[in-house]
């Protein structure tokens, strides 16, 4: 077990370098970012050259990459085009985003799995159809629309909440944004759970458990759910990175200054330092998240052992 974890941690090193190099090259391929910094006019060549020098863009790519990685290992992630340190941007963006992601994942687990169990146990019943209908709505109506409507209803019409999230972004304020963010993933989690439950419902060990006269609830939570959760957990593990880095619409609607927004801005402005910095952290986050998910496997299914 310990050796397994160490091996996994060691394997992160090549992934880390591969991913940063790839992202670095991709932003580089997008072209010269300086042209976009001077408004609707040509940058004067001297200032443009000076800016390129300042951001190190005048050097060959490999040189830029090595210099950047060198700085990263001393904790210096560079400077955004507006003069702000990238570490400073991260320090404000990540805490909010982590809170938002936690809320979203809690929704996925609580609501998604609950609905999945219910619909899986009662396939074809009205509950199942209603949940399917909701799933379709969530998939075919853009998050922008659901978010905006919720905001108008809860924030303006009924006055239950502030339409926008304050800079502190306390957990309580993130409930509705978290629900909006989780909505599409909820559809996946629900249907994955539903299918697994339906499939395992007829498995021998469930029949045995029922035949033994165990209470139904215990059968569901102890035997059925536990064995059905593996694909669901796998999905949630893959989803954490997407939730953290891709929450742009949700973050915009609720005015959350999180990772998605910073990454989006960084990419559009072709700011290598911001983009690579944020993606690097995200890569580490989901590598660790997936390691945790894999360790959870053993908890869910004690028959799985790690070499």
């Amino acid at each position, binding site marked *: 077990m310990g050796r397994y974890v160490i091996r996994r941690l060691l394997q992160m090193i090549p992934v880390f370098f591969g991913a940063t190099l790839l992202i670095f090259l991709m932003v580089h391929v997008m*072209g010269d970012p300086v042209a976009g910094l001077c408004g609707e006019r040509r940058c004067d060549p001297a200032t443009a050259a000076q800016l390129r020098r300042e951001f190190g863009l005048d050097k060959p790519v490999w040189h830029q990459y090595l210099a950047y990685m060198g700085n990263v290992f001393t904790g210096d992630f560079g400077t955004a085009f507006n003069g702000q340190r990238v570490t400073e941007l991260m320090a404000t963006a990540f805490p909010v985003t982590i809170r938002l992601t936690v809320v979203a994942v809690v929704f996925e687990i609580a609501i998604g799995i609950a609905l999945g169990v*219910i619909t899986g146990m009662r396939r074809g019943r009205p509950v199942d159809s209603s949940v399917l209908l909701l799933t379709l709505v969530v998939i075919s109506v853009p998050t922008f629309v659901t978010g905006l409507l919720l905001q108008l209803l809860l924030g303006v019409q009924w006055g239950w909440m502030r339409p926008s999230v304050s800079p502190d972004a306390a957990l309580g304020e993130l409930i509705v944004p978290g629900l909006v963010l989780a909505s599409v993933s909820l559809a996946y989690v629900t249907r994955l759970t539903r299918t697994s439950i339906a499939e395992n419902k007829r498995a021998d060990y469930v029949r045995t458990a029922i035949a033994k006269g165990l209470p139904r609830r215990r059968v569901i939570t102890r035997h059925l759910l536990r064995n059905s959760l593996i694909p669901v957990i796998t999905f949630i593990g893959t989803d954490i990175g997407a939730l953290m880095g891709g929450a742009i619409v949700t973050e915009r609607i*609720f005015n959350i200054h999180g990772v998605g927004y910073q990454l989006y801005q960084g990419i559009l402005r072709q700011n290598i330092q911001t983009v690579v910095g944020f993606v690097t952290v995200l890569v580490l986050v989901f590598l660790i998240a997936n390691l945790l998910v894999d360790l959870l496997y053993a908890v869910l299914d004690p028959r799985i052992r790690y070499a």
Partner: protein
Amino acid sequence: MRGARPARWAAGAAAAALTAAACGGGGGGSAPGVLSASWGDPQNPLEPANTNEVQGGKVLDMVFRGLKRYNPRTAAPENMLADRIDSPDSRNFTITVKNGWRFSNGEPVTARSFVDAWNYGASLKNNQKNAYFFGYIEGYDKVHPETGAQTADTLSGLKVTGTRTFTVRLAQKFSTFPDTLGYAAFSPLPRAFFDHHEDWLRKPIGNGPYRVASYTRGFKMSLRKWDGYRGPDKARNNGVDLQVYTDTNTAYTDLMAGNLDLVDDVPAAQLKYVKNDLGGRYINTPAGILQTLAFPFYDPRWKRPGTQKVRTGLSMAIDRNLITRTIFRNTRTPASDWTSPVLGTAGGFKAGLCGAACRHDPHRAKKLVQEGGGLPGGQVRITYNADTGSHKQWVDAVCNSINNALGDNEACVGNPVGTFADFRNQLGRHSMPGPFRAGWQMDYPLIQNFLQPLYYTGGSSNDGTWSDKDFDRLVDRANAESDRASAVRLFQRAEGVVRDNMAAIPLWYQNGNAGYSRRLSHVALNPFSVPVYDEIKVG
């Protein structure tokens, strides 16, 4: 049903959390007499000569006052810190600064505050994006050479001649130079800017009606009325809290919910409901912004004689009235010249200068395009950047207009480019496949600013590389003319050259708009579409 228990638990938790959120969200109010307003994160550090967009401009407008200030209503340049600006020859200027002005840290504003600031702004090593504003001043080529290292640190054309006087010598005659001095880049700077630069950036110090009380980058800036302010435009409120919104829709929703007092850009999709949502608390006033379609004159297909007929035909194919009404809900006005109504007729705005060429006439349009040899390549692709502004909507509408006039559903298509930087790079590389969007927001309210940068040979925003000797000659003569009215007439003749060649198709004048809460009164936007914060009354 037992299976439902987790669901019931989850629903209960969600409801509880919602209530908690509602309780937490109650205290959105500001201090008494302070208003909250929407803001966008400035793209550059807040140095005056480094700020080239509206969001940073908002702050500078509150924190700084320059030699001149553009009247918030008429856009006329009026003396602010300038006591007098004299020139015998439109080239040498003697500037006297008013007595008694101070920065909010107590330091007096002197001639040196200006000269130091301008030298800083012009110097290549300081990387200021608006450095070219100092390009008229003698010695600019030494402190900011096009290539190579700079050979001087200060502009030889600037001399401090007394505590409150300094002289400016320009590289060539420019009669309206004093009128450009209201631009933020020409603001004075305190010593603190130079001595403690990092601290200054964290909390800018200026000489305007407001001082920065606190600044959390990316989130919020609190400005408070500065009681030591000596100017005539003292703040009539106790302060402004600028709140960063990443989406104007959210700001608007917050305004409706009572969490925000002022939104200075109401999203177009909400305009239909603005009356209903806000009653009369909505303003929509002209700003010095003109949208045009420019052409790639480096492409021989667009340079060929006779293509001006095609361009004029395209211009006449566009139903500006319908588009500004439907897509923009009257936050744009159909353009009929190449300047802006905010200049006023005395300043050079001339409604209808474009004449029939800007009037919707599908039949003549089709005929003109045919006479001019048809569309180059049989199709025009209008290039725009997709990442800022909602350009897709109006480009699609313009294309529909053209397609309907020409009777061909694919005569015109949009050609989106992913990022603004890429768009600018394509312009720089001269690789536009056809007409492209061009927007011009004036730097200062002069007709010169609407023409020279855009159509003069080699102009900084002449992205289509249009070049015409007659135009250049008229502009040169106008710049040397010391009488304002005759200068304006010469600029208008130059504008006539632009029209006859249809060097760019004028589309519409852009307005600024804003919605505000019940707490506020006397809300207005200046010609730069920035709210006149100091005039707003709270309560």
